[in-house]
């Protein structure tokens, strides 16, 4: 007996409902395209639901480098009492802190509100393509199989699954060793005494990293003062400091390059903690990714005990949540019409066909305590050209998110959620415009000037900042 396959037709199909995918789907729909968003999981928002702060929205100098969808998401989080706002880490970044639970609400609001047809719990199974044209994607869920035919497809899977399935050329992790940045499972603790934590930072500043970007303060002392006066639990513990260093040496903590604490709710006195890690896991190898589930949970137990016993302000704090899924920093990248380079990002290079901006530091986590970090010139931003979001040889396929076309260094900056949302907005809008212009032929036929004008009209930040 052969099994039946249903079909569905749409203008734009977005695969992956993380920060890039929800931005892409929302903006495609708002710009008039019939849009379907498919995600394998039970919720939309991806890493926005993890508790990690949204990096890459504000330059180190303090300029917003991302607007449009991202700002709207933040405003929606605020409506759900879940917006802490921009916070400076006095180290290298201005981050935007949100309550990940409000982010779940906000993602649903924006995506469904734009009229996107959503299929959750749905796996992308096969890509139907030929000669650079993606005809559609066969998806599988409890209902069976459906061929979703689309005129433009956006790959927001993070892993470039659709591009891979369409036979596009891909790059992986470190080109020589094929090693990949560690995977992490974020967790949260509530009932943190922020003033006590900041007193401790003030009295023992050798434990935390500040002033990697020199523009934040005159000197280390002033940076620590700034951090403390900010009044929020945004603290980056490093293994070179005695508290974390000794704990690692004594086996009370696993080796890690950071215990990064971020406020996610002032009302609940709750923070997220970015610290757990297992390196060199190929997250597209599901068996391997599943096998580290246990290690990561064990690290959470260890780290929450470490914080309670060794870090003032956490004495009465309790575990309050574990992220909905393992966070993945790095897997495949497409090889696009242009490959964004580490030099481009460190120089803060601008492009005439820039459709999104990045401003996160170069940020390559290694195994254990290894971690490479470097600042963007003048604490500014760089442009991401549309060419980085079109796989070489593909006609109606766009990508957004961490599978963009970049070398490993540039990827380590552009992979963060602020940039992902900006890329998502850009390709969602481009996909919708493709219909107006050439009835969904080659996305390269979209006039980049007109796309940039549309993006700017809809709140994107493309010009006017360093």
């Amino acid at each position, binding site marked *: 007996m052969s099994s039946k396959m249903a079909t569905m037709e749409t203008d734009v199909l977005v695969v992956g409902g993380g920060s890039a995918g929800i931005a892409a789907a929302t903006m495609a729909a708002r710009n008039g395209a019939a849009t379907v968003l498919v995600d394998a999981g039970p919720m939309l928002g991806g890493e926005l639901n993890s508790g990690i702060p949204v990096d890459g929205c504000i330059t180190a100098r303090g300029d917003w480098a991302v607007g449009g969808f991202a700002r709207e998401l933040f405003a929606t989080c605020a409506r759900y009492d879940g917006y802490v706002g921009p916070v400076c880490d006095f180290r290298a970044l201005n981050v935007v802190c949100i309550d990940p639970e409000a982010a779940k609400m906000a993602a649903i609001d924006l995506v469904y509100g734009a009229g996107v047809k959503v299929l959750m719990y749905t796996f992308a199974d096969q890509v139907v393509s030929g000669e650079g044209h993606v005809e559609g994607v066969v998806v599988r869920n409890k209902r069976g199989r459906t061929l979703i035919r689309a005129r433009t497809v956006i790959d927001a899977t993070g892993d470039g699954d659709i591009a891979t399935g369409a036979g596009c050329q891909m790059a992986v992790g470190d080109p020589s060793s094929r090693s990949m940045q560690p995977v992490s499972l974020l967790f949260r603790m509530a009932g943190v005494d922020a003033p006590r934590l900041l007193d401790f930072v003030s009295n023992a500043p050798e434990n935390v990293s500040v002033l990697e970007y020199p523009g934040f303060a005159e000197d280390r002392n002033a940076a620590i003062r700034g951090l403390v006066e900010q009044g929020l639990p945004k603290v980056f513990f490093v293994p070179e400091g005695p508290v974390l260093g000794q704990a690692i040496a004594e086996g009370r903590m696993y080796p890690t390059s950071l215990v990064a604490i971020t406020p996610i709710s002032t009302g609940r006195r709750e923070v997220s903690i970015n610290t757990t890690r297992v390196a060199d896991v190929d997250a597209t190898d*599901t068996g391997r990714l599943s096998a580290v589930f246990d290690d990561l949970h064990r690290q959470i137990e260890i780290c929450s005990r470490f914080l309670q016993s060794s870090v003032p302000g956490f004495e009465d704090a309790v575990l309050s949540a*574990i992220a909905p899924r393992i966070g993945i920093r790095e897997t495949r990248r497409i090889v696009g019409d242009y490959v964004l380079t580490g030099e481009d990002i460190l120089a803060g290079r601008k492009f005439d066909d820039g459709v999104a901006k990045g401003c996160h530091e170069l940020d390559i986590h290694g195994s254990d305590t290894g971690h490479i970090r470097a600042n963007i010139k003048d604490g500014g931003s760089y442009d991401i050209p549309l060419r980085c979001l079109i796989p070489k040889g593909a006609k109606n396929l766009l990508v957004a998110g961490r599978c963009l076309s970049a070398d490993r260094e540039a990827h380590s900056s552009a992979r963060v959620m602020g940039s992902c949302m900006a890329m998502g907005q850009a390709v969602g809008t481009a996909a919708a415009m493709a219909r107006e212009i050439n009835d969904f032929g080659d996305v390269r036929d979209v006039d980049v000037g007109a796309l940039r004008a549309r993006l700017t009209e809809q709140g994107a930040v493309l010009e006017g900042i360093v």
Partner: protein
Amino acid sequence: MPAHMSIRHHDVVVVGGGAAGIAAASAAASNGADTLLIDAGPVLGGELLSGIPIDGCLNTRGEWIVGGFLTELLDDLKRMGGYVGAFFDWRTIWVVCCDPECMKLAVANRLREAGVNILLYSFVDEVVTDGGRVRGVVVLNKAGRTLITADTFIDCSGDGDVAVGAGAGFVHGGGNGVFQPVTMVFRMAGIDTQRLLDFARDHSENLALAENPWITQSREECVRELVAQGYPKVFLRADGPLLSQSIESGELYPTALIGVTPVSTQRREVSLNTTRIANIDATDTQALSAAMPQLLDQVWNCQAFMRKRVPGFEEARFAGLAPRIGIRETRRIFGEEMLAGDDVLAGRKREDGIAKGGHHVDIHGGGTDQVRKPIKDGGSYDIPLSCLLPKGLENVAVAGRCLSADRPAHGSARVMGTCMAMGQAVGTAAALACAGNSPDPVLSDVPVQALRERLVDQGAILDGTH
């Protein structure tokens, strides 16, 4: 070009990592079987992670009727600070209240101790059958397709996906598109328990109390006992003045209940079971996906209502959504035998019982509708193995809400305490079957008395209670 498919073999494969599946996998592995647990999602624990209390662990009299795996899980939670306690709702049931976030650690710990192999993010695509045997399942994930063969399969998918895929007969909900509602459970933190309990005492007309004839106390005595318990376990009824007026005025959506349950004493946090959309076929992925915005509207509506109208919630804050939509009812398979509502209501005991249920017959309908019928004498009933063996399949067992039962019996047996008991029973049965000499073990050949002895040895409660 033919696509590649890899292959792996295990003694026992469990599909679905909810309450039933983790118990089944853990029991199978603990009893010596090489066991693989597969789930389509990124995390294990299913509804245990939702915040809803664990029903069906004690009968109305307060006797524990589920032990074994459940006891070990709760012991882990106690050690980790995630166990709140077992409480009587003074309406009709005892519930076990836990922190759903700590639960993630406890579940990981249980599976580690038992030595279960896990495969997350993996969708069961096809079931490979050979007459009345299932030879394998083909799973789909980012790494491609894998044929996973096993000697026995345990279907804990909730929806009977494996059994139905292998040709088992089934009934779907109440027939004619009638299904118990789906629910998004959510949490609120920072509640004032004393104020809530004062309100409960002074306005007990809003509470559901003394619904079970086994309770001989007056409503007034029940309220006193409930308040004396000292925990925010309160069941606001639809026909009390507060809810009925609020539903009437449109301030609150029509619902049968707002079930408030403590999840963390330290965070002063409760879960709320109240949102609902009836008659959604949760195996229709598109319909289920489309339910999301309405459920989240209800979540936000309810949290505002609680803050405004319910003393003790004035300062409380929204603290999180369950990881996924909760599903009460989809398919029930046709087993060797079908558990009947009369068996449940009569508290029928059986010599071949391998798990116990004690939850009342509890069939939620649309809006304010809910059928609730108590079990005789506040006791429990036995579930025989034959209700967990799909008719016509030799090496497949089910555990969880897809058991073989009529609709009223299912309305009781679907809860998590019972699911874990069923899971432990079939996991153990599968290990015993694989330990025999047959290359093709048949689950119904497992001697029931030997199975019962093994279960009792390992802490299961099969006898000695009402």
